[in-house]
Every structure is written in C-alpha cells, then in structure tokens.
C-alpha cells in the first residue's frame, strides 16, 4: 500500500515537472505562443471549451465511434481468433497476413471506404475496427495456445460442449492475454477514428483539431489534443487496473 502511494506520487511529480518545464519555456519565449500556448493556458481553454458545450457533438461522435470500433474489434477478434485457433491449416495460411498487417497503412483505404459508405460515421468506425481487430485476433490465438492441456481434458471430463468449453474454460484461462488485446484495440481504434476524421470528415474531434490547426486556432487545438490523450489514458489505466486485479487473484503478481 505504502509503495503504491509513493509510486503514484512519483508519477504525479514527473508529470508536474514536465508541465513545469513547458510552462517555463513558454514564459521565457523559447516556445513562442503561435506554436504552443503555455500549459496553464491550455487547461483554462479546455475548461472554457468544455463549459461552452460547443464541442459536445464532436466529442460525442468521436467517442461513440471509437467505442463502437473497439467493441467490434474485440468481439469479432475474439470470435475469429477462437475459430482460427481450431483450424490449424487456416491459421498457418493467415499467419503471414497477421504478422504483416501493421505494416499496411490501413488509413490508406479511407478514401475507398468513403466512396463505398459515403461521408458517414461508418468509414471512421471501419478504420478503427481494422486497426484494432488484428491485434485482438493475434493475442487471442496467443492466449489460447497457453491454455494448459489439462484444462481442456477437464472440460471433456465435465461433459462440456464446444461453446461451454470456450465460455467456462479456454476464454477465462486466456483472459490475461485477451485483456492485453483489448488494451491494444482501444488505442488502435482511437488512433484510427481520430486520424480518419483528421483526413476527411464533417465533424468529430479529429476534424475539429485539424480545422483549428488550419486556422492557427491554438485555443481550440491544444485543449482538444489534451482531451484525446486524457480519454485514451483513462481507458487504458482502467484496463490496466482490471488486469492487475486479475493477475493478483491468480497469484501471478504480489
């Protein structure tokens, strides 16, 4: 408990030191205000921006798109991973695709998706989904590989069907890996959604950031960037916490 507190304190101090340095550099004029506002200014702008409510739609759109993309990536990824794991040949065939997937700039397909689906939410969601799903498939395969064989035998002695085996034995046994996959899916999906809005969209946080950027509107751009970071970090640390609890329960961590 004591060490946990100290750790948290250290993290806060590092964050404060970093912001402090930025603050000093801005005040000294080393960073000029056209490039970046001082941190305290960004914070004030953020409060103002959230208070005004003028970006609520954009925020809601981006977050819900990212959430849909993440959920789809996780569900499709776990199901596909479980199926592929059962078919050795399919897995061997897809292995190369999976290992080179992240070398392919998925974002390059965005214009194509817009041609197909129009300038709706769908192309953004698809990009987020495509970014996240392969990470989930790969971690699912990895996790299922590590399920002890004795647990699969146990499932048979307990007369479990294929679905029951997955639900009661293999997926829970692979849960630490699945959570790792979920963490990646969140990050990749947010990146995918925001980046696609950056390229071409009618609304969303990515769109607002790029719009502000084009208009040298730092009072809007930086707070929005901070907001994206805050969301991403919050979701990730929640998942980390869950992961730690799970590991503790299984005796994998003190």
């Amino acid at each position, binding site marked *: 408990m004591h060490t946990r507190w100290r750790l948290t304190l250290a993290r806060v101090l590092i964050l404060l030191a970093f912001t402090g340095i930025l603050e000093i550099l801005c005040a000294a004029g080393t960073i000029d205000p056209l490039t970046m506002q001082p941190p305290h200014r960004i914070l004030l702008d953020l409060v103002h921006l959230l208070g005004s409510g003028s970006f609520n739609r954009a925020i809601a759109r981006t977050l819900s798109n990212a959430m849909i993309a993440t959920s789809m990536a996780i569900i499709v990824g776990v199901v596909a991973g479980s199926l592929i794991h059962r078919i050795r040949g399919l897995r061997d065939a897809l292995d190369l695709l999976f290992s080179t997937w992240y070398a392919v700039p998925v974002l390059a397909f965005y214009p194509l998706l817009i041609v197909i689906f129009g300038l709706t939410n769908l192309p953004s969601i698809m990009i987020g989904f495509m970014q996240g799903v392969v990470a989930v498939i790969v971690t699912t395969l990895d996790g299922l590989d590590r399920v*002890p064989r*004795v*647990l699969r*035998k*146990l499932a*048979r*002695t*307990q*007369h479990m069907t294929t679905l029951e085996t997955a639900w*009661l*034995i293999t997926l*829970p*046994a692979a*849960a630490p890996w699945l959570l790792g996959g979920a963490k990646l899916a969140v990050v990749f999906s947010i990146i995918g959604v925001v980046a696609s809005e950056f390229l071409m969209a009618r609304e969303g946080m990515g769109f607002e950031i790029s719009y502000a950027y084009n208009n040298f509107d730092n009072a809007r751009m930086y707070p929005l960037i901070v907001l994206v970071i805050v969301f991403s970090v919050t979701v990730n640390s929640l998942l980390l916490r869950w992961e730690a609890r*799970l590991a503790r*329960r*299984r*005796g*994998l961590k003190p």
Partner: protein
Amino acid sequence: MLADAATPLVTLRGITRVFPPIAGGGQPIHALGPLDLDLRTGEFFAVVGPSGCGKSTLFELIAGLQQANDGTIAFEGKPITGKVPDGIGVVFQEDSCLPWRTVRGNIALGLRKSGLSRAEQETRIEHVLVLMNLVEFASHYPAQLSGGMRQRVCIARTLVMEPRLILLDEPFAALDQQTRLLMGEEVLRVWRSTSATVFLITHALDEAAMLSDRIAVMSARPGRILDIVETAWPRERDSRILEDERFGAISARLWRLLRDETIKAADAH
C-alpha cells in the same frame, strides 16, 4: 445400474495403444498392451510401473479421453468410445483448478448438468467441503492455497458428482512425503464413505502398498501387466498400516517385480 460384485465394473480386453510417429519421421510408439484387466466393484486398485511405461495412457483410455487402437474397454458393461462415461470421475496429475474461480466455484462446476435444485447443489457442495476439509477455504482462490489443498479441491470437484469410479493419475506426485501420506488417508476415507471404486496410478510403492486392495505392476514400455498383488487389508485402515509387518513384505514384493523393469526403462531413455 450398479453392477453386482461378481461382474467387474471395468473390463479391458486386448487393449493396445500405438502412437503415430511424430511429424517429420521416426517410428510409431507402441505405448501399451496388449493388456487385459478387470476392476472389481468397490475395490481400491492401484497401478505402479516404471516411468514412461504407459500408465497415463491406460488412465486416459479408461477415462474415455483416448481411444485404443485395438481391444475393448467396458464400464458397467457398456463400451467406452471416445467420450467420458457418466459415473466416472477424473483427477489429473497436474493442477487442474480453475484459478479464476473460488474453491466453491470450482466444486460447483461439477454440478452444472446435475439437474439438482439450488438447495440440493448447496447441500452436496457443503458435504464435500466438509469431507475434504475445505470449509474455511470455500471462498478462497486457488492461488491462495498450497499444492496439497489445490489437489484436494480437484478431488472435491470430482466427488461432488458422486462418481461410481474415481480415477486418479499420480495426484500427489508433486507433494512432499508427509502430505502425500495424509492425502492418501483422505482418499481412503473418501473411498470408505462413498463406496466408489478407486483406480489410482502412483509411482510410490509405499503409497500403493498402504492404500490398495490390489496392485497391478506394469512392465517397461510397451506397458503390460506383470502381476497383480493382493494385500488383503481390512477396509478400515490408515497410514498406521506402515507398521504392519505384512506391509514390508508387500513393498518388497512390488520392488522385486519392478526392479528389472525400472532398469530396462532407464536404459531405454
């Protein structure tokens, strides 16, 4: 239907198990047999044999987890074919507790398909918790328990299904000698109080000699049954049998049978 004492609970006839060669060449592995064996209803039966002689293979064949290349196995008169028959409970050598479920949750796993009411399930779970001395640990997770206690949870999870045949594959191999003897006593106690038939694989001769009514001694691979030793212990017995003079004689006989085979098995490795 429970077979009467005269007809065997399990019969194996001409059982042979050959594993195909591992991909990339090599010879097929003749692991077991041909082998005949009868398990009598209600007896405590042990199998000893040199390592790698096919004990686990025999175990999985009776459990219905593997299929023989040749021969037939029947449980209560019905052939076993690629499915674990109802009425057979299995305890593995490796720890098979589910680490994400509490002790109670692990045990309850065995009752999912029992068709019992909630209350009846609770009664049964309480019963095996008491039987296996796990009451205070019911809401613990396996990670909070010692290896011996985790193996007790696995036994409890099997017992709650009230099997007529309990198969144990070296369940105490990972435990220290003292714990092993005490766990042996617990299995004896369970055996007495449930009237189930017990089939125990072990590499410890003293364990086999102390617990069993009959002990099969297996040859080096391919595993065959060299001899079956009868102990004639009373049903009421515990580890104090170790002091009985006949205990020494039985252990010595087992070792005489096994010695050459163990050397053979060691040379083959």
